[in-house]
């Protein structure tokens, strides 16, 4: 018995040292001050963890099994802990006992059920890993070749199975122990008569007796197995900090430090920091290092990533796991290696290549679905900032950034021509810098310069005009809003653009801002406030919905189209603007058929994160084409509706390249509104 205590303390010591090493690793990351109160964070974390809802999403079977394991494990752990509390502390020190009577019986029942739940959950997880062949559980990496040392990482598979088997053995031997004790003490009435309070144990005991196990034999079995059970449990405890078991702590901690705007509002580079972006593993902050350890390789981000879906060398999961291995190799020993050995950029195991980083479209699908609040996008963008400093990017992207710096727009057009699209309109569009307006319309680059999108801008201006909205634009005072420049990682240029726009906005008089561009919407709404620019801003869908509600716009020719709606990343996932466009489609009389991937799971068109400025590899499928095929599967689809200028560009192109031209059309929601409210003659835009 004394030996067991020695082993127990040893296990606790190993556990404690492991925890120390992990915490020391996180503390080697950069400093970060969290926003928000501790209790709010704790509450949010507990609500996620106890409900298990983040694990449920897009995989309810796994969520259910996880819940069985979670609650089974927690109850059994609590049960064991209270026994220890009574046996080792309260009774010897204070003579307090509570482990008898009704309490004991009820607790027996609860633990018995908990054990069954745990085993059921574990068996399902084994079935899932062994037989369901889920692609998201395949550890082969899209950014490595077969034969590379870290290509499919069989050690991960071994660890997964070892974890499941260990828990299963602990749970199963627990039952055998219980049954053996019943057999052993079958002559003690207080034990035997209440055996059915432990139904599984009692059944097993009956079976053992039927198989001819004597009371003496039961005693021997119990004694031997007790050691086995105890040792495995102690090994599990000792191994927590160095194996995937640690997700019990790291996932909870990660959820607790979650930033609800992680991808929407990228971190600023503090004035005091000379270097931009992450070059070394220690350039990530402690929270990001913790994020790396929270990952359970569930593969939900791997599955959701549009870059991965079209075969690009990027899986958000593998960026995280690579960096985790890197941190493990460099930051867990007593001394930190030289700076040269901390470089996270490259192709060696643990490093992340620039091809991988540039494949990201910052669509936020990974961040949104992660059950444990890993924030991939800021990690990727911080690494890109370093690439931008080094000029390690596609020459076309370099050219675009220079163009944006020079002209304020990505089209390389003269600033003076920014408002030129409004000239053909039969009414003047106010210059908000010269006269006060109620609504200031931030138009954005694509809606200002792209000929196809200019038509949409003209329609929107007409609609506002007909609805009697007092609106204006900034003309050449407006620059590219910078959303995508920031996501490329060109933080300096972003600051220049944001400042220029904030100055232009400061020179105008208006009550609120509306924008037809979800990208501009996101950065003005979520990021400009960090630079002192606070505006009331809405996407046009919200404004138009209100105009309908106020009867300032009325459908005169209901449309009977069968449509599907593509949620733009920056409107939907980024800013939860799922409802307004759908409400508008209903108002217009359209029949909406959702695609499988919609709302939070909407599939990026491929334009985000500056990727619209870099051509996709020739021959490979583009995300927009992947999406078009999904839409084409809807029987009788007539219109593929978008509400983002970049989407219009990307999908009209994809419609042609996937051979769907003539089958259905891509339209901006604004164009459908126009169709349902035919323009009065005088208002018609000259072609």
């Amino acid at each position, binding site marked *: 018995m004394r030996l067991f205590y020695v082993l127990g303390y040893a296990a606790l010591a190993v556990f404690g040292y492991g925890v120390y090493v992990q915490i020391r690793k996180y503390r080697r990351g950069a400093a970060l001050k969290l926003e928000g109160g501790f209790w709010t964070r704790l509450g949010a974390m507990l609500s996620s963890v106890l409900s298990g809802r983040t694990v449920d999403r897009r995989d309810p079977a796994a969520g259910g099994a996880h819940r069985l394991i979670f609650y089974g494990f927690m109850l059994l752990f609590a049960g064991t802990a209270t026994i220890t509390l009574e046996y080792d502390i309260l009774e010897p020190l204070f003579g307090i006992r509570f482990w008898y009577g009704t309490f004991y019986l009820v607790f027996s029942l609860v633990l018995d059920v908990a054990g069954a739940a745990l085993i059921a959950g574990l068996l399902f997880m084994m079935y899932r890993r062994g037989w369901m062949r889920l692609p998201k559980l395949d550890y082969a990496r899209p950014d490595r070749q077969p034969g590379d040392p870290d290509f499919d990482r069989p050690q991960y598979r071994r660890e997964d199975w070892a974890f499941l088997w260990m828990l299963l053995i602990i749970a199963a031997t627990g039952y055998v122990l219980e049954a053996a004790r019943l057999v052993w003490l079958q002559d003690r009435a207080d034990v035997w008569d209440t055996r059915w309070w432990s139904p599984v144990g009692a059944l097993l005991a009956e079976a053992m007796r039927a198989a001819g196990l004597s009371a003496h034999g039961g005693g021997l079995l119990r004694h031997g197995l007790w050691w086995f059970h105890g040792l495995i449990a102690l090994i599990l405890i000792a191994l927590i900090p160095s194996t995937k078991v640690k997700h019990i702590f790291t996932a909870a901690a990660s959820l607790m430090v979650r930033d609800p705007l992680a991808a929407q509002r990228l971190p600023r580079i503090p004035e005091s920091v000379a270097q931009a972006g992450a070059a070394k593993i220690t350039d990530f902050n402690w929270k990001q290092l913790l994020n790396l350890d929270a990952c359970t390789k569930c593969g939900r981000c791997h599955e959701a990533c549009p870059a991965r879906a079209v075969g690009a060398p990027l899986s958000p999961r593998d960026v995280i796991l690579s960096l985790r291995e890197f941190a493990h190799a460099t930051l867990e020993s007593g001394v930190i290696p030289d700076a040269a050995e901390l470089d996270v950029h490259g192709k060696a195991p643990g490093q992340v290549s620039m091809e991988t980083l540039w494949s990201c479209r910052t669509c936020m699908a990974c961040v949104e679905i992660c059950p444990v609040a890993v924030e991939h996008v800021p990690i990727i963008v911080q690494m890109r900032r370093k690439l*931008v*400093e080094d*000029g390690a990017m596609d020459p076309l992207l*370099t050219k675009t*950034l220079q163009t944006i710096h020079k002209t304020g727009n990505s089209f390389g057009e003269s600033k003076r021509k920014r408002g030129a699209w409004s000239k053909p309109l039969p009414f003047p569009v106010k210059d908000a810098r010269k006269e006060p307006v109620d609504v200031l319309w931030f138009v954005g680059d694509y809606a200002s310069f792209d000929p196809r999108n200019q038509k949409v801008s003209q329609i929107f201006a007409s609609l506002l005009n007909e609805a009697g909205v007092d609106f204006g634009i900034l003309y050449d005072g407006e620059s590219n809003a910078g959303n995508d420049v920031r996501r490329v990682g060109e*933080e*300096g240029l972003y*600051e220049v653009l944001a400042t220029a726009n904030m100055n232009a906005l400061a020179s105008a008089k208006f009550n609120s801002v509306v924008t037809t561009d979800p990208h501009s919407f996101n950065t003005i709404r979520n990021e400009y406030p960090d630079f002192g620019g606070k505006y009331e801003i809405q996407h046009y869908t919200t404004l138009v919905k209100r105009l309908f509600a106020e009867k300032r716009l009325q459908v005169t020719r209901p449309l009977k189209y069968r449509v599907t709606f593509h949620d733009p990343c920056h409107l939907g996932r980024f800013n939860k603007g799922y409802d307004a466009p759908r409400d508008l489609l209903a108002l217009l009389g359209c029949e909406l058929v959702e695609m499988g991937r919609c709302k939070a799971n909407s599939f990026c068109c491929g334009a985000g994160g500056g990727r619209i400025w870099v051509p996709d590899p020739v021959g490979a499928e583009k995300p927009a084409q992947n999406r078009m095929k999904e839409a084409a599967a809807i029987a009788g689809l007539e219109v593929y509706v978008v509400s983002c200028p970049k989407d219009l560009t990307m999908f009209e192109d994809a419609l042609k390249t996937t051979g769907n031209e003539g089958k259905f059309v891509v339209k901006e929601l604004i164009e459908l509104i126009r169709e349902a409210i035919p323009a009065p003659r005088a208002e018609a835009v000259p072609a």
Partner: protein
Amino acid sequence: MKIMVAVKQVAALDEDFAIRSDGRDVDADFFIRDLNEWDDFSLEEAVKIKEAAAEPVEVVAVSVGADEVDESLRKCLAKGADRAIRVWDAAIEGSDSVAIARILAAVAQREAPQMLFAGVQSSDQSFASTGIATAAFLGWPHAAVVTSLSLAPGAKSAVFRRELEGGLLHEVEIQCPAVLTIQLGINTPRYASLRSIKQAAGKPIEVLSLADVGLNAADVGEAGSLSRVRRMYVPDKGRAQLIDGDAAQQAARLADIIREFKGAQT
């Protein structure tokens, strides 16, 4: 070792622009200013030599112009130049490329670099003469349109290649110090991030007057120039004509025009 890189801030034009009232240049309001494209390459070549060298190499960017040129010099500093020098005096206004070369040569004498790079030409004026004229003032050997260069720091000579007509390559050895004008495509110029440009504000831009480089007003401006811009204008359009009529009429008219251009042939 020291490499001096002569750079120029050029002006690109907005789509609509107006000619200055004296009719000799475009109104500066319509300029979009940027570093001359060729100079991106010559600066990159110097910075590459510096980065590859075991011994310290100093890269000095030099330009002639008013304060707005600082922006382009800061870009050079951001891309790896160690120092920048800007020469300006109101008298310099109106200088042609030879007068500018006289100023650059004066700076080169002061700095005494082992090598002086310039772009083959500037994208706004395209005289392609400043670099070579500078060599003439210095009495240094020179070569134009260099497309590849191998220069070991401290060496007495450098070897470079030039592309000639007919797909020929010219490999030449040249004594240092020399003036080379660098052609586009010799390397891949790096990107100067806005942060690096901002941080380059900390690096020095030395502003020199004419007196500092040992020149006086008579050496520069129109007085010191060998050529003078008489006027700048947009030529009359009108050589294109629209052919009306149906297809047959248009074809007949087109045939007439072609015959007219071919001239009489029997």
